[in-house]
């Protein structure tokens, strides 16, 4: 199990070096989006409208954080379950998205797109929302504020701990580890 530090934006060289099972610490800008924001983004793409942020080489974190207490950047902010985004994900990967952070396995269509567009899927620890919030140094709502916790936020993170769950070759930690048991 390797430990690797990476900075955003992603690129093909970084992604090539990441293998399922690697522990990765991410530093840089990432964007939050979950169910409702995905629906809106994909609707925008279908209508040839622009997205609220530059999706090329970006990472989306599937999270709906708690509101910050006064003086804090953000509240608890762990990953939500990823499969609910599966219908939308291939469209976003085609549009230039390179990385996703969530929890749980993905559909065959998503894994095929991860391979096709040379992308990576990271797992963060579900339910470790207080721990993860320590890594988030700034947070700003940039779109869909009416969605409340589901609004798109631009986050700056330092050493956000994740595990490579599905790498660009299609190796899938969810399958490998349970099969080896």
């Amino acid at each position, binding site marked *: 199990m390797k430990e690797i530090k990476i900075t955003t934006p992603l690129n093909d060289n970084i992604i090539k070096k990441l293998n399922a099972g690697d522990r990765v610490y991410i530093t840089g800008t990432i964007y939050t989006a979950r169910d409702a924001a995905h629906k809106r983004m994909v609707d925008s793409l279908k209508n040839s409208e622009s997205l609220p942020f530059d999706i090329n080489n970006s990472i989306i974190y599937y999270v709906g954080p*708690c509101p910050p207490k006064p003086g804090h950047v953000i*509240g*608890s*902010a762990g990953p939500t379950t990823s499969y609910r985004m599966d219908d939308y994900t291939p469209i976003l990967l085609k549009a230039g998205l390179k990385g996703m952070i969530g929890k*749980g396995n993905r559909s065959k269509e998503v894994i095929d797109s991860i391979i096709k567009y040379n992308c990576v899927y990271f797992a963060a620890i579900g339910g470790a*929302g207080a721990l993860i919030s320590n890594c988030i140094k700034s947070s700003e709502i940039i779109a869909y504020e009416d969605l409340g916790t589901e609004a798109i936020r631009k986050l700056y993170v330092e050493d956000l701990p994740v595990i490579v769950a599905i790498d660009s070759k299609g190796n899938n930690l969810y399958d490998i*580890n*349970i099969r080896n*048991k």
Partner: protein
Amino acid sequence: MRKINVSEIIDKVKEMCIKANYELGEDVLKKLQSAKDKEQSPIGKDILDKLIWNANISKDKQMPMCQDTGMAVFFVEIGQDIYIEGGNLTEAINEGVRRGYKEGFLRKSVVNDPIIRENTMDNTPAIIHYDLVEGDRLKISFAPKGFGSENMSGLKMLKPSDGIEGIKKFVLDVVKNAGANPCPPIVVGVGIGGTMEKACILAKKALFRKIGEFNPIKHIEKLEKELLDEINKTGIGPQGLGGDVTALSVNIEVFPTHIAGLPVAVNINCHAARHMEVEL
């Protein structure tokens, strides 16, 4: 007849919403610790260690342990000799939720209409199950229920001939199908018997039981232990990344049923198995 004013209920519910989300119960924490000692997979052990660490941070900093602070679920036992004054009980519970989720900086995760889906922005309405009991006490049990695990639940109307093997197979199927999604190690609530909706409510109620307590009926306790063993043999492990600890507990509640039926409901809870109760 004992009188209870709704203002007392509002305050108590507000406190419960906040405390249940900030402080993981000792029963769950203790079980996570023993799970960590038992876990052989290095990734699994590391994850369990981080979950214990996370629970400590949330308690110290007084912040939610998980960002999914849930839909607010209540079981309320009302003594029939109580008179609620000053307003409506359901409205009082909802007002407590409204205040708790706002003042505790908890996430508002409820949408008003399941199709239109506009966030109600105050986490109401709560889901409330009432039971009328003897006496003059009001017992309020609360669990903030996250939907990563709720979504992985299931119901099956088995045939009586399916028997205990059928029950085991269905529970295991639900757990295997859930995989990593409900944030293992999970707590598995099982409701057996009654009607369709009764089985589901029993499964939910089972999740309110303290970890480490078993069903008082001996053959049900045996089934709880056998199922826990079998679930932990699946290899799903912490966060579904492989390991020895997939579930912390299997809690089963049963109820009489019809000669033609064997309803079985499985309600899954994540490792942040938050629940607490107060008596007024």
